[in-house]
C-alpha cells in the first residue's frame, strides 16, 4: 500500500481521517472520488494483502500448528497484526476486579484495521432497529430511520459485494433485486440445522456475507454508485476488475489475497489512492484533535511511532474512525480551554452507553454426522446460513422476559484440522493406535456449534472514561472500562441456551457439557464478540447526544465520527455494514457542504 511520511505531507488538507478500517476506508473512498483531498492517519503499519496473506498455508506449516497464543489470539495465520486482546505498549484498565464487570477490548493496529480478518457477516439493520425506544420504551431512538439509510446499504452492498438471499422476514430487510450476489450452497451442518430448526420453529436461511460468489459487474455497478462522475466510475471499475470471485477454499479470517471478500485494504483504499487525492501516513497514532481559535477543529496531533515524535496534520475538517473505543479516547484526551472535559463533550455523554453484542454458545455432538463420507466442506471461508431473529411478535405481545432479538450463527466442524485436536479430547481419551485414528475419523465433523449474537440495550453502567493514572508508551492516558449487563441480556442468553438445546436434540444430538441455564454463567464477557459500539451517541437534541444525524458532533461542526461510536442502539445485526452505510452518508453530507463552500 503506497504511503507517505509526515515530511511529505501537504501544508493543509481538506479532510483528515483517523483510522483506515471500515469507517475510515469508506470515508476516504467516498470523499476522494468526489475530488476532496484527504490525509489518513493509521496507527498501525502498512499492509499488503496481495503479498502477505497466507492463503494456502496449512496448519502444520505454522508454529504450534497455527493454534492461538497470546501473540496471535486467533491463531498464527489470522490476519490480525499487532493486535488482539492486548496490544503491545497500549494498555487499558478496568474499573472493577469482577470479571462480569469488565470489558475485553479487541484492537488491531494495521492498515485496514479489523476489516482484514472480520467475519464478513453483513446484515442490514431493520426499521425497528433505528426506533427501538418507540417500540419498547427502552434505550434510544436514532434520529434517522431505516428509510434514510436504505439507499446507502444498497450502495455499500454493491461496492463491497455481499452474498445472501431475500427472505422477506420481519425487520430483516430485503435488498433490491439484483443487488445481492447468489448465496452459496448449504453445507452439511447448515442443512442439518435448517431441518432441525423447522421442527422447533426456528427459521434457518442463507446469511449475508461480504464475499464475492461471482465477479462484480464492473460494467454497470460503478455508474450506479457514482452517477455523473466518469472519473470515479473508471477508477471503481478498474478496482472491481482486480477482485476475483471466491475460489471456495481458505479461511477468510486470514484475509483474501485475490480480493474476493471485503477488507478495506482491497476494496476501499485502492480506488481512493488511485484518485491521487489520498495520502496515508502509517504508524501515526492520533493523540488529539487540535482546535483553532474559531472553535473549529484544525487538524490532528499524532505520535509518529517510527520516531516517537509528536507531529501535526492540518485540515479543514476532521473525521475520527479509530474504532469507537479509540475515538472516544481521542475525544476525551483532546482537552482545551473551550472543552475542559474533552472535545465535543458539552453534553457530558462522550464515553457513555458503550455496547457489545450478547454472546452465548453451545455445541452439540450429532451421531448422524459420524463417519460421513469425506467431502469438501470449505465453502466461502465463513458462515453460509443463520437464523434471523424470529420472535418479534411474541416480544410485542409481552410474552418474553427480554426485549430485543438475537440471531443464531451456525458453526460446522469439517474444517481444516491441525493445531488443536479436531475432536474434543474426551472423545479420544484413553485411546491409542488404529482405534484412536478410527475414532477421530468417526467423530471429526460430527459437532455443530450454535452461537447467539444478540442486541444489548445501552445502560448507565456500561461506559468508558480515562484512567486517572495509567498512560500508554507515549504518555497518553488510557481507557478505563465499566461494564454491566442488564436482565434483558442475561435472560436472552438463557433463552438462547434453551433454544440451542432443543435444536441440538431435534438433530438427534447431545449437548456438549451441560447447557447452562443461568444467564450470568452462560453470557460471554462484555467486548468478547468484538462489536464494540457507542460512546458518542447520535440524537436530535444537542443536550442529550454527542452527534447529530450526520455523524457530526454538535459542539464542533467540522468534526465527524465515522466508526460505530455514534450508534444509538446495537441491533443483533453485526455493526460493520451500518458503519459503512453511515460513513458514506456522512461523506455525501461533507461533499455537499464543501460544494456550498462550507468546508
Amino acid at each position, binding site marked *: 500500500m503506497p504511503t507517505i511520511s509526515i515530511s511529505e505531507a501537504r501544508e493543509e488538507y481538506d479532510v483528515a481521517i483517523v483510522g483506515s478500517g471500515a469507517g475510515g476506508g469508506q470515508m476516504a473512498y467516498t470523499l476522494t472520488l468526489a475530488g476532496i483531498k484527504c490525509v489518513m492517519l493509521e496507527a498501525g503499519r502498512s499492509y499488503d494483502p496481495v503479498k502477505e*496473506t497466507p492463503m494456502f498455508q496449512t496448519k502444520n506449516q505454522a508454529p*504450534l500448528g497455527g493454534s492461538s497464543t497470546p*501473540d496471535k489470539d486467533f491463531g498464527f495465520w489470522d490476519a490480525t497484526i499487532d493486535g488482539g486482546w492486548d496490544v503491545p505498549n497500549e494498555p487499558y484498565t478496568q474499573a472493577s476486579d469482577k470479571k462480569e464487570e469488565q470489558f475485553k477490548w479487541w484492537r488491531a493496529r494495521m492498515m485496514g484495521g479489523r476489516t482484514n480478518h472480520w467475519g464478513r457477516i453483513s446484515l442490514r439493520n431493520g426499521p425497528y432497529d433505528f426506533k427501538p425506544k418507540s417500540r419498547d420504551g427502552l434505550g434510544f431512538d436514532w434520529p434517522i430511520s431505516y428509510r434514510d439509510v436504505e439507499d446507502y446499504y444498497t450502495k455499500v452492498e454493491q461496492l463491497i459485494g455481499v452474498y445472501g438471499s431475500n427472505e422477506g422476514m420481519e425487520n430483516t430487510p430485503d435488498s433490491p433485486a439484483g443487488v445481492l450476489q447468489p448465496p452459496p450452497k*448449504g453445507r452439511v451442518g447448515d442443512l442439518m440445522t435448517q431441518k432441525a430448526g423447522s421442527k422447533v420453529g426456528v427459521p434457518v436461511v442463507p446469511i449475508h456475507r461480504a464475499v464475492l460468489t461471482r465477479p462484480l459487474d464492473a460494467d454497470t455497478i460503478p455508474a450506479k454508485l457514482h452517477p455523473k462522475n466518469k472519473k470515479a466510475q473508471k477508477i471503481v471499475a478498474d478496482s472491481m476488475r482486480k477482485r476475483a470471485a471466491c475460489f471456495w477454499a481458505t479461511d477468510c479470517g486470514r484475509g483474501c489475497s485475490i480480493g474476493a471478500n471485503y477488507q478495506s485494504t482491497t476494496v476501499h483504499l485502492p480506488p481512493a489512492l488511485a484518485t491521487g487525492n489520498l495520502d496515508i501516513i502509517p504508524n501515526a497514532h492520533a493523540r488529539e484533535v487540535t482546535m483553532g481559535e474559531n472553535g473549529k477543529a484544525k487538524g490532528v496531533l499524532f505520535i509518529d511511532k517510527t520516531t516517537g515524535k509528536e507531529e501535526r496534520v492540518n485540515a479543514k475538517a476532521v473525521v475520527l474512525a479509530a474504532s469507537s473505543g479509540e475515538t472516544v479516547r481521542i475525544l476525551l484526551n483532546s482537552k482545551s480551554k473551550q472543552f475542559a472535559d474533552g472535545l465535543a463533550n458539552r453534553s457530558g455523554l462522550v464515553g457513555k452507553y458503550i455496547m457489545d453484542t450478547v454472546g452465548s454458545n453451545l455445541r452439540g455432538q450429532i451421531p448422524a454426522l459420524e463417519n460421513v463420507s469425506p467431502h469438501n466442506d470449505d465453502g466461502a471461508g465463513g458462515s453460509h446460513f443463520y437464523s434471523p431473529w424470529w420472535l418479534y411478535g411474541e416480544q410485542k405481545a409481552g410474552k418474553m422476559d427480554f426485549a430485543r432479538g438475537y440471531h443464531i450463527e451456525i458453526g460446522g466442524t*469439517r474444517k*481444516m484440522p491441525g493445531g488443536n485436536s479436531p475432536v474434543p479430547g474426551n472423545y*479420544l481419551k484413553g485411546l491409542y493406535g488404529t482405534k484412536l485414528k478410527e475414532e477421530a475419523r468417526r467423530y471429526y465433523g460430527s459437532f455443530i456449534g450454535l452461537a447467539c449474537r444478540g442486541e444489548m440495550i445501552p445502560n448507565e453502567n456500561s461506559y468508558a472514561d480515562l484512567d486517572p493514572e495509567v498512560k500508554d508508551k507515549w504518555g497518553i492516558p488510557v481507557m478505563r472500562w465499566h461494564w454491566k449487563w442488564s436482565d434483558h441480556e442475561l435472560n436472552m442468553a438463557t433463552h438462547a441456551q434453551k433454544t440451542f438445546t432443543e435444536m441440538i436434540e431435534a438433530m438427534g444430538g447431545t449437548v456438549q457439557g451441560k447447557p447452562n441455564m443461568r444467564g450470568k454463567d452462560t453470557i460471554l464477557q462484555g467486548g468478547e464478540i468484538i462489536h464494540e459500539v457507542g460512546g458518542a451517541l447520535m440524537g436530535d437534541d444537542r443536550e442529550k447526544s454527542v452527534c447529530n444525524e450526520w455523524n457530526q458532533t454538535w459542539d464542533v461542526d467540522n468534526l465527524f465520527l465515522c466508526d460505530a461510536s455514534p450508534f444509538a442502539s446495537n441491533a443483533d445485526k453485526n455493526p460493520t455494514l451500518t458503519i459503512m452505510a453511515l460513513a458514506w452518508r456522512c461523506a455525501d453530507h461533507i461533499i455537499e457542504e464543501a460544494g456550498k463552500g462550507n468546508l
Partner: protein
Amino acid sequence: MDSETNNSRLPRRTVLQWFAAAAAAGEASALQGFAQSAAPATTGYGTDPNMAKIYNPGDVWPLTFSKAEKNAAVALADVILPADDLGPAASTVRVPDYLDEWISAPYPKQQKDREAVLPGLKWIDEESNSRFQKSFADLSLTEQQTICDDLCREKQPDPEWRKAAAFFHSFSTICIGAYFGTPEGWKAIGYVGNTPSGIFTGPPQEVLDELGLEQTVKD
C-alpha cells in the same frame, strides 16, 4: 462436473490470481522484510510474525529434547499414531519435532504441557527399564502397548500413575493436533479441501442421501 472442466472455463485473469495466491503460499524467504518485529527466541514470535513463509520446528525458538527424550517421544508417538491403513506413522510426518517445538514454546499453555511431557518421557523410560530392563524405544510393540494400556485405564488409584496418565493424555493430544494437521493426517481423518475451485456444489448427493438432507439453495 469435474473440477478440470470448471477450471478451464475460468477467465485467464482468475487463474493467474489463483496462481499468485498459491505461489505466495510457497514463497519462503523473499518477503522476509515484512515482519517488523523479528521475535527474540525466548519471547515467542511476536505480534507481527512473517506470514508469507513456511515454518519448521526450531525456526522461531530453540528445541529442547535430548537424544533420550527424542527417542522416547518418537516411539510413543508411533504407538499412539502407528502406520496402518489410515496413514503413515506419526514420526514419518514429523510429529516428534512438533512435540519438541510445542514444549519449547515460551507461552503459558505450552509451558504447562512441558511440565507434564518432559518428566513423563523420563518416567516412561524408567517404567520400561524397571519392567523390561530396556528403554521405551527399545521395547517390542507388545511391551510398549502393555504400558500404554496401563496408562489408559480409566481409574488410576496410584498418584504416580495418575500423573503418568495425565502426561499420556497431554502427549497424545499434542500428537493428534500435529498429525491431523498434515496432508497425510487430513486423509486419515477425512478432511478434503484447501484446493481452489470455480464452483462450490455443496455436499455431494450421496452425502445428502446418507443424511436424509436436501440442498435448499437452488441454482
